[in-house]
């Protein structure tokens, strides 16, 4: 299994593309840092007792800061390294969850629409068209706004992460649905699918066991690209003050807080989370571009 994987074409191409390798290293480092944030971070940015105002606004180490704080501290004395690790943890959690929800919903609807066709297909695709005309950020803002009106404020506060995840997922499912549907149209008339259908297998089984494995390539590309979009959307919403509140800072919230120091010279409070976010998203997009080239031999 492993030997087959190592000899496979994507892996071969991967080790010949320096950009993809660099991007993978950055992405793995960020992912690892986020996953092990509680062990890596020197302070807990959510725990007010773990940092002190006395350490506030210390610059990064190379600008004459304190050796305890590699990238300096914010005005509350919060260690910036800890802040971005925990911020990335939250951003990635929301991004991955939103991507998962969007892919299950989108692929499910797309598979069914492509497989059954007819009226169901028409309805799903009409909804997709309408949503495609609305940019994702507008959809997400709208869903968030509606949830504020429907849910009582206290409950809304508790459900912030869930609401945000759902808002992002509902604005990204269209890509999955359209890709899955288009791929199903290609696969449906192939012999193996016809054979499975004639054998009288349950449609669900045909879709999930026969068609889905054969259309994973393009879906994987969409997954990567949409993970980047989801992270960007979360960051944007939090930056606008619509996403997560300041007491559980994601990368977007950290950037919003840092904006207050744009004019006052404490540049690291703004630029550390900003560059971290950009590095993460760029590396995911580079990986997505690489996957697209791998799965689309025409472009090679």
């Amino acid at each position: 299994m492993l030997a087959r994987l190592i000899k496979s074409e994507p892996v071969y191409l991967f080790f010949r593309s320096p950009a993809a390798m660099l991007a993978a290293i950055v992405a793995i480092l960020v992912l690892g840092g986020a996953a092990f944030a509680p062990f890596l971070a020197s302070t807990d940015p959510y725990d007010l007792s773990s940092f002190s105002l006395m350490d506030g606004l210390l610059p990064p180490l190379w600008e004459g800061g304190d050796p305890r704080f590699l990238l300096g501290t914010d005005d509350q004395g919060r260690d910036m390294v800890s802040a971005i690790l925990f911020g990335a943890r939250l951003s990635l959690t929301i991004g991955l969850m939103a991507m998962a929800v969007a892919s299950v919903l989108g692929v499910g609807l797309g598979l069914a629409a492509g497989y059954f066709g007819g009226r169901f297909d028409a309805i799903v695709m009409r909804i997709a068209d309408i949503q495609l005309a609305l940019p994702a950020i507008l959809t997400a803002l709208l869903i968030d706004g509606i949830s504020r009106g429907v849910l009582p404020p206290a409950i809304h506060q508790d459900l912030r992460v869930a609401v945000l995840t759902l808002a992002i997922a509902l604005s990204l499912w269209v890509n999955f649905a359209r890709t899955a549907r288009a791929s199903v149209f290609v696969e449906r008339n192939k012999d193996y699918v016809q054979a499975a259908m004639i054998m009288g297998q349950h449609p669900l089984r045909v879709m999930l066991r026969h068609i889905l494995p054969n259309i994973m390539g393009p879906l994987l590309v969409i997954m990567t690209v949409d993970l980047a979009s989801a992270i960007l959307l979360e960051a944007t919403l939090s930056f606008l003050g619509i996403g997560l509140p300041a007491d559980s800072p994601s990368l977007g919230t950290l950037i919003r807080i840092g904006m207050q120091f744009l004019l006052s010279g404490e540049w690291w409070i703004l630029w550390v989370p900003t560059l971290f976010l950009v590095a993460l998203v760029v590396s995911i997009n580079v990986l997505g571009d690489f996957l697209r080239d791998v799965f689309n031999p025409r472009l090679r």
Partner: protein
Amino acid sequence: MAFFILKRLIQSVFVMIAVAFLAFSLFRFVGDPVSQMTGVETSAEDSARLREELGLNDAFIVQFGRFTNNMLHGDFGYSYRTRQPVADMIAARIPATLELGTVALLISLLVGIPTGVYTALRPRGFVTQAILLTTLVGVSIPTFVIGIMLIFLFGVQLGWLPTFGRGGTVQIGGWTSSLFTFDGWRALILPAVTLGVYQLTLTMRLVRAEMMEVLRSDYIRFATARGIPYRSLYFRHALANTMVPVITIIGLQFGGVIAFSIVTESVFQWPGMGLLFLESIRFVDIPVMGVYLVVIAFFFVLVNMIVDLLYVAIDPRLRVRGDG
């Protein structure tokens, strides 16, 4: 031809009705309008009377009909937050957003089309590779980060340009414009560039893809064989044939510009509709949210109508097929 336009018009009307229905549902079902408009000290009878006056006891379809009728007559209801007519609030904000969006779109087209053509003509050149890499990074950088970077560089470090607000404005028949003062243009540059950059990369990539497609086609090969000068070949024969898809994206980009103007306006505190929409979300000001949607949808529909008409003007085949 006339049939084609008529069909488009009818479709547009249906879209507007659907959006109006969405806005009405928001108003009617997200939170209770009466409890939003009254305070804790309002008596039960007063609430009931207000409910009756607003017609909230009528049948749903009657309410929706009245809502739509009011909108057609310019009555968009009142904001929960400021108690002002929503129509006035939105109208005061429209010029700022439209000017910002138009200038951003112009930047996107005036820079995007030439670079797209260039990168298509020299696909392996060093400059092309550099431009393509820049756009890949550019797509990955969120709009608000681009805005912050521009503010930092030109506003804080160099001190050349203002970083918030619209600068000097001029009143022209109720339209507050910042396009006629030097100060206003200075204030417009950073937000418009921020908003235009992302659209620019899209325009460039599309023009490039279309141009490469056209350059491979038979008629260009024949034209080359006939010895038509390259300048005329590229710009008259090839570029003209990429115009239909390019116009399509202008229509699509308009949506993107409106959506991202929310972000840009927030970064630069630009007093447009986007900023108003954000405030209305934050304060759950449902009437403003709903009307914002209707106004945006109206502009969408309008731009798409114009795009459809341009198709017919540009592509002679559509004129022959006419009602097809």
